[in-house]
């Protein structure tokens, strides 16, 4: 019996999030790691003006570093005991798996980014006002969706590969470079870093939305082939 994509996606997302809540990899490993990255940046730059100017970029860089860990973790769960093979043998719709894993990754990234922005406010003393908040939230949602889709897509691609731990960052980093650039520009506008206005940030958010749509659609169409032998 073929199940609907949405039902499979809900089951996969719920399963991934439940596993994360039990294993606490995000809270015990990824969050401390990204927090350390933020602190190291603060020590390295050691200048409030510079830190406030580059805070957006630092948050997104720390997010990207953590993305690699999260993507590897989310697929390690599937490959450790052959669950991905079992899903394939069971004829489970790969689109449902793609959407479900993307949603779970999206939620974990959102939690991580919330903590990172709080850290930026505390450590780098950045401020955001009402109109900036709307831009910032939209930027975070679009950038996170793009990162979740592309992370799931490349995670699936490298899941069965030898040396996937090193292969994943190598393949993923160039692809997510547009997200880093656009999200940084949009965040700088939201925080009004370096005299830019909030209005200047919206075109960058548009690019992020297009990026998310392209990789979301691409993932839906190609994820099944990527996880085949």
């Amino acid at each position, binding site marked *: *019996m*073929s*199940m609907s994509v949405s*039902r*499979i996606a809900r*089951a*996969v997302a719920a*399963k991934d999030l*439940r*596993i994360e809540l*039990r*294993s606490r990899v995000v809270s015990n490993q990824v969050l401390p790691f990204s927090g350390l990255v933020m602190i190291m940046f603060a020590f390295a730059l050691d200048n409030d003006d510079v830190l406030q100017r580059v805070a957006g970029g630092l948050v997104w860089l720390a997010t990207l570093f953590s993305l690699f860990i999260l993507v590897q973790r989310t697929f390690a*769960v599937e490959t*450790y*005991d*052959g*669950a991905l*093979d*079992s*899903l*394939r*043998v*069971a*004829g*489970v719709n790969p689109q*449902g798996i793609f959407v479900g894993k993307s949603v779970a990754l999206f939620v974990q990234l959102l939690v991580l980014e919330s903590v990172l922005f709080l850290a930026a406010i505390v450590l780098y003393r950045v401020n955001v006002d009402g109109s900036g908040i709307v831009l910032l939230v939209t930027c975070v949602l679009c950038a996170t969706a793009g990162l979740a889709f592309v992370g799931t897509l490349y995670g699936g691609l490298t899941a069965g590969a030898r040396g996937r731990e090193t292969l994943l960052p190598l393949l993923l980093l160039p692809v997510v470079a547009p997200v880093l650039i656009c999200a940084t520009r949009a965040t700088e506008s939201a925080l009004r870093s370096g005299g830019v206005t909030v209005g200047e940030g919206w075109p960058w958010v548009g690019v992020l939305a297009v990026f998310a749509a392209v990789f979301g659609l691409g993932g839906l169409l190609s994820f099944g082939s990527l996880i085949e*032998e």
Partner: protein
Amino acid sequence: MTTDSVINFVDAVAVYNGYPALAGVTLSVARNEIVLLQGPNGAGKSTLLRACAGLMPVIRGTANVLGFDLTIDRESVRERVGLLGHQNGLFGDLTIAENISFWSTVVGASVQEQTSAMERMAIDGKLANRRVSELSAGQKRRCALACLVVRRAELWLLDEPHAGLDAMGRDEIDRIVKEAAASGATVVVASHEIERAQQLATRTVSLVAGQVRDSL
């Protein structure tokens, strides 16, 4: 091919890492049979099971499983086949009940089917709520088999199901396989536990170098 054939391979060839792991296999398995696949390491037992499950392409010859031609379409057969390989396909941080519930949801099994599968595998309330990572090898195998049951697999492909189990665990696997066959499933078992598996099987097929040597 008889009308009741579940598996019908004629001169089937499958390549694994550039090596012909199946080098012209001819094999027919009838409904409700329990077939033991035996042979030395590298004979192609696991490859044959994976090919039957539609996981590995058959590049030449005839390969029909449950009426599906695997040389044309490997995906349609998957919903009706259950493969238990060297790994169990379980999530260690979830409980047995959560694993079975997950599989039930993604394959569309009802809560009743889920409960029935757990009863058949003698998984009671206390055991059901234990995390898979805390279980013995035999308990994990039982859980994996319960997941096959909720999938209503018509063809069970078991790769070394007795591996790593104690005597009691092996007896349990045998009981489950017999029950599956009695309830209408066809079972193909690849095993090095020849004596035990021969007692279980209705027929033994020997594979050597990717070919069927004899079928008794």
